C-alpha cells in the first residue's frame, strides 16, 4: 500500500509539473490565484494520481468517483491535473480565464471535462458532496466522493451544517481534504479569524479526522487509504500546507493568494521549479 520510492519520485515530478502549470496559467491569464493551488499541489497530485477514479476511460461512467473543488478559486492546479490525466487538452490550459474557454475563473460543471460541480462561492461544496455521497450509496455504487475545502472556507457556517448532516447520515464514502495554510485574503488566519483546530472540530462533529503534513506524499497517501477504509463516518484530512509552496518569494505570503506574477517573477518562479520560462 505504501508508495514505492520510484512512484514517490514520479509523483514529485507530477506535483512539480502542476506547479509549473499553475504559474504558466495564471501568468498567461494575467490574473487568478497562484498561492493556494501551489500549496495544494502535493496532496492534489496524490489524490488525482493514486486514488480518484477519473480518467478518459471512465469519464462518463455514472458510478465513478466524484470530485468537488469547494475552494473553487484554487482551480488552476485542478485543471492542470485534469490535463495530466488526459481529460482536458493541454493546449487549453493557457486559455484559463479567457473568453470562450471552458476553464472558467472558478470551476463550472462540465461532464465532458470531468468537472463534476460548479463552485466559487465558499461554503457550498461540502453540502453538495454529501448529497453526492448519499446518492452514490443509495445506488449501491462503490464510489468515493472527494471534496477539497480550506481553512478560510471553514469560517463559513454552511460547512458546519454539512459536517453535521454528513456525520448524521454516516457517509463513509465522503472525504474532505482541507487545505490548511493559515492564510486567507486579508492576512494570516490567526490574525483575521482563527478557526483553530479543525481536526478536533470535525472529530467533535462525528467525523474521522486526521492532521497531516500536506506536502508529505506518503502521509497523504496513507490518510487517503485510511479514509477509504472508513465505512460509517465521513473523513476529514486536515492538510497543513504552505501557501505558494515551491516558489521562495511566494511562500507563506498572503499577498500571493490572488495576484498573477509579472514576467520577471514568473521567470524566477519557473527557474526555481527547474525550468526556464518560455517567453
Amino acid at each position: 500500500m505504501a508508495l514505492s520510492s520510484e512512484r514517490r519520485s514520479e509523483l514529485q515530478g507530477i506535483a512539480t509539473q502542476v506547479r509549473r502549470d499553475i504559474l504558466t496559467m495564471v501568468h498567461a491569464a494575467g490574473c487568478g490565484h497562484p498561492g493556494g493551488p501551489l500549496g495544494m499541489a502535493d496532496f492534489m497530485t496524490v489524490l488525482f494520481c493514486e486514488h480518484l477514479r477519473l480518467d478518459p476511460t471512465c469519464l462518463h461512467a455514472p458510478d465513478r468517483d466524484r470530485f468537488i473543488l469547494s475552494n473553487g478559486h484554487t482551480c488552476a492546479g485542478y485543471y492542470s491535473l485534469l490535463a495530466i490525466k488526459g481529460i482536458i487538452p493541454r493546449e487549453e490550459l493557457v486559455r484559463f480565464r479567457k473568453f470562450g474557454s471552458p476553464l472558467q475563473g472558478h470551476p463550472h460543471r462540465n461532464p465532458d471535462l470531468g468537472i463534476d460541480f460548479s463552485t466559487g462561492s465558499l461554503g457550498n461544496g461540502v453540502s453538495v458532496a454529501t448529497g453526492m455521497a448519499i446518492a452514490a450509496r443509495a445506488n449501491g455504487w462503490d464510489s468515493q466522493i472527494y471534496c477539497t475545502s480550506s481553512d478560510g472556507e471553514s469560517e463559513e457556517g454552511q460547512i458546519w451544517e454539512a459536517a453535521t448532516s454528513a456525520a448524521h447520515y454516516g457517509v463513509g464514502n465522503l472525504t474532505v481534504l482541507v487545505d490548511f495554510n493559515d492564510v486567507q485574503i486579508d492576512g494570516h488566519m490567526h490574525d483575521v479569524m482563527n478557526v483553530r483546530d479543525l481536526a478536533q472540530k470535525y472529530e467533535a462533529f462525528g467525523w474521522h479526522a486526521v492532521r497531516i503534513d500536506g506536502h508529505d506524499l506518503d502521509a497523504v497517501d496513507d490518510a487517503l487509504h485510511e479514509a477509504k477504509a472508513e465505512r460509517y463516518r465521513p473523513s476529514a484530512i486536515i492538510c497543513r500546507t504552505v501557501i505558494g509552496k515551491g516558489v521562495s518569494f511566494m511562500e507563506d505570503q498572503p499577498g500571493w493568494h490572488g495576484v498573477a506574477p509579472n514576467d520577471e517573477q514568473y521567470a524566477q518562479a519557473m527557474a526555481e521549479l527547474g525550468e526556464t520560462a518560455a517567453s
Partner: protein
Amino acid sequence: MTPSALAPLATGQPNPVATRNAYGDALVELGGERDDIFVLDADLSGSTKTKAFGQAYPDRFLNLGVAEANMIGTAAGLAAQGKTVFASSFAMFAAGKAWEQIRQSVCVPELSVKVCATHAGLTVGEDGKSHQMLEDITLMRVLPKMRVLVPADAVEARLAIRAAAATPGPFYVRLSRAATPVVLSEDYEFVLGRGALLREGKDLAIIACGVEVAQALAAATRLAADGIEARVINMASIDPIDAEMILDAAAECGAILTAEEHQIRGGLGDAVAQVLARNLPCPLEMVGLDDSFGQSGTAEELLAFYGLDATGIAARARDLLQRKA
C-alpha cells in the same frame, strides 16, 4: 376568444384545501411511480406535508434539520448524481435563507432540484412578518434557468408538482399554508408556460396567481353586478409566462389588473408589466403589497387589510377603468 377556450371550473362547493396538502399527496403519488425521486426537508416536514412521503419511502427522504442552505446543497449533490429532488421548507427560509445556494448550486449547474416552498404570503397569518414571505417570486424569477409556478388551488398544485417532476431542471413552486377554495375542476389541464382563461370579459382583464385567483373570480362576480365584465386569467406559470395570453387580453380588454399575494415590485405584476411595456402598453394596475411587510392576523383579515380580497380587487378595477380611454 371562443368560449371553448375557458378552463373548466369546479362545480358545487368543494371543501377548501391548502396547496401544501396537494403537494404532500402528489409526492406520495410520484414516489410510487418513480424511484429516482428524493424528498428533502429542514425540520418542517409536518407543516410542508413532506412527512407522508418520508413515511412511505424512508430510504428516499432526508431531514436535514434546521439548515436550509445545506439542504439545498445536498439536494444539488443528489441531483448531480441523477436524482430528481424535491426540497421543502417555508418559503421564507427556502427562498430567503438559501437563495445563494439555489443560485450557485442549483441554477448555475442547471440541476433537477424542485424547491417547493410552503407558507408563502400573507395567508400564513398569525406568525406575522418574519414568516410571511412576500418577496420570493421576485427572488426566484430573476434567476436564469429557474421556472416559477404559483398554483391557484389544490387541483393545480398537484398538476404543477407533476409538471416539475416531469421537466428536467430547476423549479420553484410556491405553496400556501391556508386552506383555500378549490376553483378548478378535476379535468383541468396545467400546461407549463400557459395561463388559463377562467372567465370571459372585455372591460378589463384581471391576471392573478395563487390564492388571489379565487379572490379575482369573486371580484369579477361583484363587478358583473354593476355591468362591468372582467376577464379573469390564472397565471400560475410565472416563468415561463404566457405572453400571448397577456397581449390578447391587452388588445381585447384595454386595461389590465394584476393580483398577487406578494410585493408588487418584482412579482407577477412586474412580469406582466414587462410583457406589456415591451409589446403593447396599456393601463395597468397591480394589487399586492407595496413597500410594506405584513403583520399578525387571520388570513381573511390580512387579505382585506392590504386590499387583496375580492372587495379590494373590485375597487382597484373600478379605479383602473377610469384610466381606460
